[in-house]
């Protein structure tokens, strides 16, 4: 039985394939659904901050490899977003499926907003524009729609096994 991290890499590869093809072409209102980021955030909401941060780091590095921005930038943002999402139990005692969905949408949007901000911090300025507001608003809604699909996938991917 494969370890949870092996499964994470394989599932993330498939999601990255969808991200760079289908979701990259299908852009409602000109905005792409950041499924990789939402998947990392899902990991945080289900398995907590620590697992979320590691998952975010791994997913982020994979995403970084297909972007032209510096390697490590997406991993930082994804890791922080997943870690933040993992703090949900501190605010909601027993998270239900819909509180997780709201968290994924909200934290996903924050992570998407943080990405151009992080780029600006390493010298890739000019990307924090009014367009970001539209992107963030869209990601909140899209995140909540996609979250019910991502949650079971994420739960299966990162479930504890004898090896992992």
């Amino acid at each position, binding site marked *: 039985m494969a370890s949870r991290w092996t499964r994470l890499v394989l599932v993330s*590869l*498939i999601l*990255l*394939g*969808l*991200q*760079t*093809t*289908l*979701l*990259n*072409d*299908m852009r409602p209102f*000109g*905005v*792409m659904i*950041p499924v990789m980021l939402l998947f990392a955030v899902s990991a945080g909401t289900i398995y907590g*901050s620590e697992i979320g*941060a*590691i998952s*975010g*780091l791994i997913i*982020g*590095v*994979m*995403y*970084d*490899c*297909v*972007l*032209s*921005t*510096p*390697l*490590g*930038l997406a*991993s*930082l943002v994804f*890791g*922080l977003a997943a*870690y933040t999402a993992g703090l949900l139990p501190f605010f909601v005692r027993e998270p239900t499926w819909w509180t997780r969905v709201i968290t994924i949408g909200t934290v996903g949007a924050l992570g*998407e907003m943080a*990405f*151009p901000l992080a*780029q600006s911090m*390493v*010298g*890739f*300025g*000019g*990307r924090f*524009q009014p*367009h*970001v507001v539209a*992107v963030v608003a869209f990601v909140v809604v899209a995140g909540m729609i996609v979250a019910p699909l991502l949650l079971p996938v994420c739960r299966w991917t990162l479930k504890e096994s004898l090896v992992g």
Partner: protein
Amino acid sequence: MALLVLTSIILVTLDLQGSAATKSLRSIFGAVFRPVESVARVVTRPATNAWYGITHYNDVTAENELLREKIAQQEGATVAAAASVRLSQELLALNGLPTLAGINSVSAQVIGDSPSNFVQSVEIDQGTESGIKVGMPVLNAAGLVGKVTQVFANRAVVMLITDPQYALSVKIINAPKTSVTTVPNQDPASTVTIVSVPVTIDPLITVPTVPATSNIAGFTPGSIVAPRTPIISSSLTIPPGSNVSVRETGILEGRGAGRVPTVRFVDAAQRFGVVQPGSPIVTAGGSLSLAPPDIVVGTVSRVKERLGTAGPLLEIDIVADLSNLSFVRILLYQPITERTAP
């Protein structure tokens, strides 16, 4: 948490320093991910096509009609333009000046867009094995598309000219200001009219030799200028030397998705005059520029006047359609300052 931040910062630092390790990581990941992406593209193609069918049907129909009309217009213009280009290249070659025709190029297919809401780039299927290097200019049939920013063995990443990180020195070709001066002669029966260029002034009429038009102001392919009537008994026309378009340089900068690039640092010199919307923009070239001179970039769509000595800010309509890139051409051009001895 601290470990995550530390790892990420180390990765960012290594990559910004141009570390070979991060390049290798990207390269290996690219080799692993490419088959996955190809499978995903094949599997999701029906869904993508359905999406385009739903969202773009009306646009495609309207665009099709518009393109048919444009093709009819441009068939005539092409003949005249080809003749002009050939003449220009002959003149440049005769004077020992570089031309685009003398630069080797590689054709490539666009195999992917940037999967991000903030980065404007595309990926092409040619790399170092075809002689492509970082910084080389990328064109399509219409004009400049961008520049190569990352290159691997069999693929490369092209930053589009709409990306906020993109900057390039360009020339704005402005037609000189029209002025008509009438000097009354002693003999009331005859007046001397001094007509300065361009050709759109009242006493002159433009007679196209072919039914062709151009979107670029001041450029009417295949047209001649002839006096409307011989009513002016004696006219003095400034010789054609003053009919040369005036050029001024500026910096073109991308502004991100959905926003047109701008040109700034345009010196509003007296001879240059007021920049007219529709004026063509071409690359400036030079020993430090990553692109050779005279690649068509676009036309001025709007002129924003600014206070002080900042000069006007020009908004640009790019001639290349960056939303539908399929095939591009990479000019294997490097400025003199970038060339290394073999």
